[in-house]
């Protein structure tokens, strides 16, 4: 992520109406933080993934997610228009100010844990992207592009879930344990947004987070049930789904802000 010299595209022309600003900023921040944190978490595999091919794959997926986060933070910078660029938003916050879902607060873990977490997240992200309407063109345009790229992530993670489920006793046991451990936090991607009603009214969202969650559960059921794997339980939703982060995230935050904090104000 570089360069304050890149202006967020068409800021003035596409500035949202004032009444949309806060709800839109909330949506963009949650989407961007999810992509950013999940990208950084899985980039921890670079160099140490169980197979060379998978080292390349998980690194490429992580790079995609960080790029998606950057594009979303750029849109957010334009909406907030408070002088911060995408790097400032991404790196200059305290850990408790991040709004990623609690599902993504879990540490990298073993390979089955990474596959389970990313599988649950990719399918949730897909359901969320499918809920974005054309109410604000800059986001609708970006989402159209993101969905083309995310198809590859879904395909890869579904293939890995099948592989581990059918890959012998140990692989299946580890995957099952990981799905059970993550289950209570899995649906936090769909934590209701404070401004959801406004976003629906403006056509920025075409369905509620609750409806997106239902679509995601149907999608998961079609994959996990035939494999005999556990589905995440339905849990009551609350704002806590995107607050109060784990020690694992605090450690990750220290890692991904280290360069930024090493020399305040430096550009490269």
């Amino acid at each position, binding site marked *: 992520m570089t360069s304050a010299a*890149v202006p967020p595209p*068409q800021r003035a022309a596409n500035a949202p109406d004032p009444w949309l600003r806060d709800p839109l900023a909330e949506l963009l921040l949650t989407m961007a933080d999810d992509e950013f944190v999940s990208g950084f978490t899985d980039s921890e595999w670079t160099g140490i993934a169980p197979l060379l091919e998978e080292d390349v794959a998980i690194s490429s997926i992580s790079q995609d997610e960080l790029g998606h986060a950057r594009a979303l933070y750029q849109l957010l910078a334009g909406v907030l228009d408070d002088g911060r660029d995408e790097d400032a938003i991404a790196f200059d916050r305290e850990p408790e100010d991040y709004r990623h879902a609690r599902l993504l607060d879990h540490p990298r873990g073993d390979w089955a844990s990474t596959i389970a977490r990313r599988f649950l997240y990719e399918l949730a992200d897909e359901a969320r992207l499918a809920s974005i309407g054309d109410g604000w063109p800059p986001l609708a345009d970006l989402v159209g592009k993101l969905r083309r790229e995310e198809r590859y992530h879904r395909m890869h993670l579904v293939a890995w879930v099948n592989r581990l489920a059918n890959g012998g006793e140990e692989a299946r046991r580890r995957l099952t344990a990981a799905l059970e451990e993550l289950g209570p936090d899995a649906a936090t991607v769909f934590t209701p947004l404070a401004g959801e009603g406004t976003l629906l009214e403006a056509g920025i969202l075409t369905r509620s987070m609750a409806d997106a969650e239902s679509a995601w559960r149907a999608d998961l059921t079609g994959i996990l049930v035939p494999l005999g794997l556990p589905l995440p339980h339905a849990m009551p939703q609350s704002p806590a789904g995107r607050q109060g982060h784990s020690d694992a995230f605090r450690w990750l935050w220290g890692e991904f802000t280290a360069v930024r904090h090493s020399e305040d104000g430096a550009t490269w």
Partner: protein
Amino acid sequence: MVMTMPARAMRPDRPTPQAVLAALDGVPDPEIPAVSIVELGMIGSIDVGADEIVVELLPTFVGCPALEVIRDAVTARVAELGRPVRVEVSFATPWSSDRISNAGREKLRASGFAPPAAVRPGRELPMLDAAVAPVACPYCGSLRTTLENVFGPTQCRSIRHCADCRQPFESFKPV
């Protein structure tokens, strides 16, 4: 208006969009210099206005790390035409690998990259369906190739293997 006319008269003639496009055809892709960004289909609209030239740049992948380099190269190249230039990175037209021109595909092949199978509306992930969209080895032309890894050394490339000449090669990801 009257005040600006003498200054205008000193400027070179306003270039046509075709002339701008021709200039941009000289900007190579930083990672595969054999093809230009025009051949890759990365240029959307070109608007030659009275005061500036606006070029719409379509990123191949949202997170492409070469984008900054490409944007700077586009700015520098168009500036040679003697007018202020503004480059707008845009997703309004999502870049698709179907935008790569025939000339671009030939140059990719000559450089050892298999061009992407057609995506076309309604068909998902054609690279995985060898019966529908076989990928020819760029070295020997054999269609007996297999996908080794959807993900490759850059976001836009995959890794394949040829069963005939036993050569690994990269292919452009259909997207």
